[in-house]
């Protein structure tokens, strides 16, 4: 299980949180997703064989949010 931390541009509406959360959770290979609203960060545990951190970042970008950096552990 890998862990990705995405740093986003500031989030302003609590609805964004739900959006990002459910969009990422729907991806295959993603186990848990935690969106930190105030820190504008997304922490996700995922299976590196099924999905990559970059794909996760792309999903968030497609929703209309800018991903500033991606870190994987």
């Amino acid at each position: 299980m890998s862990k990705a931390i995405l740093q986003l541009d500031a989030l302003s509406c609590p609805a964004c949180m739900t959006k990002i959360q459910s969009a990422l959770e729907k991806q295959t290979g993603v186990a848990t997703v935690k969106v930190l609203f105030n820190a504008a960060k997304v922490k996700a545990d995922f299976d590196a064989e099924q999905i990559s951190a970059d794909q996760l970042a792309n999903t968030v970008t497609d929703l209309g949010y800018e991903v500033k950096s991606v870190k994987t552990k």
Partner: protein
Amino acid sequence: MKMQRFINQHINQVTLLTAILIGIGLLGKVFASNTIYTLAFISASIISAVPIILRAASALRFKTISIELLVSIAVIGAFMIGEYNESAIVTFLFLFGTFLEDKTLAKTRHSIKDLTQMAPTTALVINDDGQAEETDVDFVDVGDTVLVKTGAQIPVDGKITEGSGHLNEASITGESKLVTKNVGDPVYSGTFVDNGTIKVQANKVGDDTTFGKIVELVEDAQDTKSPAEKFIDKFATYYTPAVLIIALAVGLLTTDFRLAITVLVLGCPGALVIGAPVSNVAGIGNGAKHGVLIKGGEVMNTFSNVDTVMFDKTGTLTEEKTAVTQVQSYGDQSADLAYAAAVENQSDHPLAKAIVNFARATGVSFDKMQPASSDVIKGRGISAVVNQHRVLIGNRELMKSNQIELSQTQQTDLKSMQQHGRSSVLIAIDGHVQLILGISDVVRAGVRESLQQLKKLGIKKTVMLTGDNQLTAQAVADQIGIDEVHAELLPEQKVTYVKQAQQAGHKVAFVGDGINDSPSLVTADIGIAMGSGTDVAVETSDVVLMSSSFDELIHAYGLSKKTVSNTKENIFIAIATVVMLLIGLVLGFVYMASGMFVHEASILVVIFNAMRLINYRQKKSKLDADQVKVNQYGLS
């Protein structure tokens, strides 16, 4: 999707353009040009409605009925019945309101941002050739040695292997006083070398460092919701669809389309949704700035209701070290003390350290003396020869076994010392007791005043729970004026006292140093750890006082009360706004645009109200003059 991102990035320009078009429209009205008026408002409506409708649609795809959806329907409705000015002004106010919210929210989140920006980015790693090479901090590994020069930031947690310096550890402890660090001392990532050059061997890097953990903790805490927030979140998920249904019902029953879309705008739950979280974000941020980590809104809430505080003694109310606090001399005090210090200087015993420190503090010089044939007698003390004088330092048994008798005065002095809870050390030179030193715990600076201040802030009872003996405990208690003392306790017995108080209906906070006290920290309603960055303390407790000071404890308690009342104020403001709008609607004062204005204004009011927490600061307790002296000389 591309389009949505484009619009998101240019939302400010969209808002500005709408404002200009509305201005042109109003000018058209002034010059009685109906065409300009109508055209300007129509284009303003369309331009500003697009981003709102897009957001509403994308939320709807994830089955969320958002505020944007209410506004979108209202605006489209107004547009259809030809109320172009209303639709333009409503959308503009909504966008402009969101813009102001972003700006002000950023202010309340500033404290975390400040924190993350303080994170080190580069490091000077010393490579195999002994050369320093600048690297990105992410590439530093555990075991690497880094060079840190004057003015630079320490990039890792580790130990000093070479050099020394004055460090500013404010980013970890909140305390800006410089600390001196030498070879072997631990240093923390994120702190600054104010003066000096050091080499540090890394034992923790990146997110594992204390600084990394603090950042993570504060980020998590700001998103950990209080019960009020959880309730409101739940409420909002039903409230927004309910507004939609109510508006529909109103429209069908009264067949008044205008009224129905007005209900949609007025029903937006803005201030209510944002009011509680924004107070907590500001409150937790304020704490982080002052060396107080409060783990979330729920902790904030519980902490504000605490009425009983229980303290561990050693390391919490008192410092880890002990000090000489009473001197009875029967000869030449400074000469005798010099002999004793010379002998004790070679020992690691805590009492020995206290004696050496005391000798140094009182200006007794003993460095040139060379003690010979020094011999430790287990459980009794130490004997040695200094400048041809035979020196015995230890307890009464040591004297007895060397056939040294105590005079009547000496016996009374010894007894009174023990009754005051002090450990006593007898010093005999050439067969006569010349000096008796009383050694006791050093109470942390300002504890007495802090306990009084806690009482003023609403704490009903303060309790000391300690494993130490009754006499010592009582002696400390008398100095600091604590309400209750329970001594000679095992860790599990401390837990029992916490539970008893809870069963009696009290909300209990336990303050400890986080290692042997962890059962009590977990049992108490609020566990408060004194910890200059120890991992256990940071993880097991609800509140961490980074520099272990009582000022931080008071600040934390006061802050929790302030934050909770701030949350209540915000909820009140939000509900009052809704009620006023409804009354206005019934009486016919309020229509879409004015309703949106009041609504956006109320959101800004709650944010501004929360921002007052950012600068909250507890007035420092004044140390009384006696205690300042005591701390200077280590006497009491």
